[in-house]
């Protein structure tokens, strides 16, 4: 036993890296490795219901505050939100508070409109990229409440009837940091409705805001994104053939769930082994 403990204690961390790497990669070839059914959290359901409840032509503001580092978790969320908005014929305004995020968002929307279902969506009419502003969020909010269009200096039919941020019916902030808090700080002052899509790491920071009702709903990590994908698919009113097609196109977060599960199991195993070594050594030292 002592020999085994000694081997485990001196285990090169490259073995851990290799196992984590394999646990992330292998499930992509075997997506049905684990049971993939899971319930929908109430936060995800709320985001879905709110967007579903908006009227045709209503405006939704998307705050795209993430760059490629967080795309695994946040890109599927943003994709499903934009698609749901398009399904409900809502106008989508996408703002990028991070310069390196602009192309990521533009590429995503360009890929969405390539899909047959959304091929009629027009830039400047159904959606618009508002770009980046070199000012802080609080300044931008004050500016949007004075004049929405001139804040961004953009033109298009999409701005019809939108004078100030008051005319935006809902906003979603996607971020992997405390960024949505900048909006929440001024929410009390202006009273706009908002939801958030955040990474699993930053999610707990926003629970108090959900409890106070400042956040209407929240998509929480990869599981939140997968729940959202499933919700949209479940509520699609299409033929079986079309459903299969849609499922293939809207499974990015679900595809990562098996990988997430296996890598966590590997981590549990290592935590267990680490604790076993610790207790074994403590006992051995005490007896000596």
């Amino acid at each position, binding site marked *: 036993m002592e020999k085994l403990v000694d081997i485990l204690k001196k285990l090169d961390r490259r073995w851990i890296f290799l196992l984590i790497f394999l646990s992330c990669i292998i499930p992509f070839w075997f997506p049905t490795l684990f049971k993939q059914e899971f319930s929908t959290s109430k936060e995800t359901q709320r985001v879905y219901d709110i967007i579903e409840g908006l009227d045709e032509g209503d405006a939704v503001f998307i705050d795209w505050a993430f760059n490629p580092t967080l795309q695994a978790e946040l890109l599927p969320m943003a994709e499903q939100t934009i698609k749901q908005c398009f399904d409900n014929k809502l106008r989508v305004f996408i703002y990028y508070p991070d310069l390196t995020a602009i192309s990521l968002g533009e590429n995503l929307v360009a890929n969405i409109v390539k899909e047959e279902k959304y091929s009629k969506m027009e830039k400047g009419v159904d959606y618009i990229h508002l770009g980046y502003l070199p000012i802080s969020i609080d300044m931008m909010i*004050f*500016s949007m409440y004075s004049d929405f269009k001139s804040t961004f200096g953009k033109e298009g039919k999409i701005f019809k009837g939108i004078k100030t941020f008051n005319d935006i019916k809902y906003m979603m902030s996607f971020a992997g940091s405390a960024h949505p808090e900048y909006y929440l700080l001024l929410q009390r002052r202006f009273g706009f409705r908002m939801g958030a899509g955040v990474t699993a790491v930053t*999610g707990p920071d926003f629970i*108090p805001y959900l409890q106070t009702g400042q956040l209407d709903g929240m998509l929480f*990590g990869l599981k939140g994104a997968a729940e959202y994908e499933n919700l949209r698919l479940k509520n699609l009113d299409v033929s079986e053939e079309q459903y299969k097609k849609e499922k293939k196109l809207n499974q990015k977060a679900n595809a990562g769930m098996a990988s997430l599960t296996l890598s*966590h199991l590997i*981590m549990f195993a290592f935590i267990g082994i680490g*604790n076993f070594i610790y207790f074994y050594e403590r006992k051995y030292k005490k007896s000596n």
Partner: protein
Amino acid sequence: MKKEIPILIGFFATIGWYLEFFFAGTFFENWKMFFTTGFRSVAIVGLLVGVVNVLRVNYSRIKYNNDRWFSVYQMSIIFLMVILASLRGVSPGTPFDAMYTFGFIPLDATVFSLLAFYVASASYRSFKIKSIESAFLLVAAILIMLSKMPLGEAMWSKIPAIGEWIMDGPTSAGKRAILFGAYLGGLTMMIRIAFGLEKSHLSD
């Protein structure tokens, strides 16, 4: 006067923004836009200063043979992206976008994904039950992780509810306490800046 004038500006701006919350209306409309435009101008000048700084730092590195080839490579990429963006734009399908998609995205995502490997290695070495508190932490962490993956729910249907309770109860309570302390600290700092007691932002 070098110190007094910025302190006075800080004092009036702080009081103004503070009062705006209580007396929102037309009186403050133009004043707010003045500040918004002002901030935008300052940020653009700041961007220019940043560009000049990048050029100066890399020029001296190239000249004095200090990481020369790294700087040459870095500057070439920057100039190439600026030239391509100026000539063909930045929309999807352009050469700039190709550099972003096939260069920046994989590199940026790779750097961040390395975190998973280090977290796994660190948890193996240091996530140990050394006390009652660390035992609570470990159990809570495992329950939360299980609640965030499908396997947890498949193992026991109550796992998501337990995870939710930990988040809504103990985690949220701790977070609220931290937030409350941080915002009180922020308020104190605001008062100190407004009355000129804090001068670190003036390089004092």
